[in-house]
């Protein structure tokens, strides 16, 4: 998957990328099982062609795009992002894709559009755990429109220079590097623009634990663990002290202005 280094501010961290083996074998993708080794074992059943993405809701030009057409919509960029999971671990991942804003501009949101919803495929035939009661399916995530328009918000099609492995959310996923990983919906089939805040999967399941914003914030703890520090997968040794977690996962210079005037402890 040919790509050029991204010129977007903050899009290429100098930190050492996590090994491809860890990135592709330690995944949360509950449609394929709740153990982090499950997606790598089970996701081979996912069929990524043919694949279409429906873009609808509060837009002037709703579209249904074939995945191969979608991939050609903008030039591919390589972006090396930190990923912070809400569970307290982190990785550094070289993604391939382009800013979601490119797509949003083409479909022209109406004046009513305030939020964007992302729907993951929910196909019980190819996703063995879609019947499980862990979450409501399909997996729905969402962003405020200005968050979705931010140049760092990435629509990703590949990692480590190759097309996405199924377990990482093939053929197309979202990557929002300043939010906890679960905000970045995988295997997207629908992008819907709405006036009302989306009801998102984890927020529905446990609203006291997972807020709509879910910005990485070392000062707002999860009820069962602290978010002040994190373990970098493959890098921090077993007995090494965990490293401090940075506000907005270190992307504050780029994104903090999206939240001016908000109480991020309340709107977590």
């Amino acid at each position, binding site marked *: 998957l040919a790509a050029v280094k991204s010129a977007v501010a903050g899009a290429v961290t100098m930190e050492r990328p996590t090994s491809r083996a860890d990135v592709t*074998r330690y995944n949360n993708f509950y449609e394929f099982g*709740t153990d982090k080794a499950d997606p790598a074992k089970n996701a081979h059943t996912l069929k990524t062609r043919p694949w279409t993405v429906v873009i609808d809701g509060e837009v002037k030009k709703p579209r249904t795009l074939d995945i191969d057409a979608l991939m050609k919509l903008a030039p591919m960029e390589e972006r090396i992002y930190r990923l912070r999971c809400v569970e307290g671990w982190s990785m550094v991942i070289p993604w391939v894709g382009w800013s979601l804003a490119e797509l949003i501009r083409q479909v022209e949101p109406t004046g009513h559009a305030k939020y964007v919803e992302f729907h993951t495929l929910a196909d019980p035939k190819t996703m063995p755990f879609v019947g499980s009661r862990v979450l409501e399916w399909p997996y729905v995530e969402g962003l405020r429109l200005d968050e979705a328009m931010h140049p760092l918000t990435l629509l990703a099609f590949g990692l480590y220079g190759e097309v996405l492995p199924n377990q990482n959310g093939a053929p197309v996923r979202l990557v929002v590097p300043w939010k906890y990983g679960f905000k970045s919906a995988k295997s997207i089939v629908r992008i819907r623009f709405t006036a009302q805040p989306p009801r998102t999967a984890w927020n529905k*399941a446990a609203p006291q634990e997972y807020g709509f914003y879910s910005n990485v914030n070392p000062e707002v703890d999860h009820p069962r663990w602290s978010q002040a520090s994190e*373990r970098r*997968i493959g890098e921090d040794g*077993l007995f090494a002290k*965990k490293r401090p977690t940075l506000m907005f996962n270190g992307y504050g210079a780029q994104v903090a202005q999206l939240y001016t005037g908000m109480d991020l402890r309340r709107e977590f």
Partner: protein
Amino acid sequence: MSSEAVATASGGPRARLDRALRHAAVKPLLWALLLTPLALLIHGAATDRLGANPAEALLRGSGDWSLRVLLLALAITPLREALRLPTLARLRRPTGLFAFFWCSLHLLAWAWLDQGLEPAALLADIAKRPFILVGSLAWGLLAVLALTSPQRVARALGGARWRSLHRGAYVAGLLGLLHFYWMKAGKNDFGEWAVHAAVLAALLGWRLWRRPRRAGGPR
């Protein structure tokens, strides 16, 4: 001599099994069995086979085995009576001590791998999170039971007092189960939890059902 002892003193396969349990190799075998998961975890950690997050694997593995071995220890008396194998009683204390051992490893994994052995951070975590507090209480209770488990101490305490104190093992089981519930609740994933809860409910149910019939009798 109770009828049970008479039944097993005569021949038959059950009596032979009970005699076999008196073999000198039985306790070492129990030790080996209850230490095997630890050997596997250590081997896995040393050879990088615990996946991308070995700290998490050790923390979860030690927690799983704490609860499993505790339930096993609680199951020994019911099994002894149901199967009429009086010699099983010899295995109760070591199994209970192993439950404490696993729980201590779990506590150590949390304190060291997760909290970096910082006393202030540990205390803050316990004070702030019911999830951690309940787990710590279960460990504290098991520590008391472990310290009072030698026969000398039991004699010093007196049989009745010792027995009521050691019913605390059920309380530790309930605390462990609550801790496990909170851990699983985040993912709405209660299958594994339900199995453990059903086992503890059955053991507790058996204990309550037996009580009126054998009031005053030895446990």
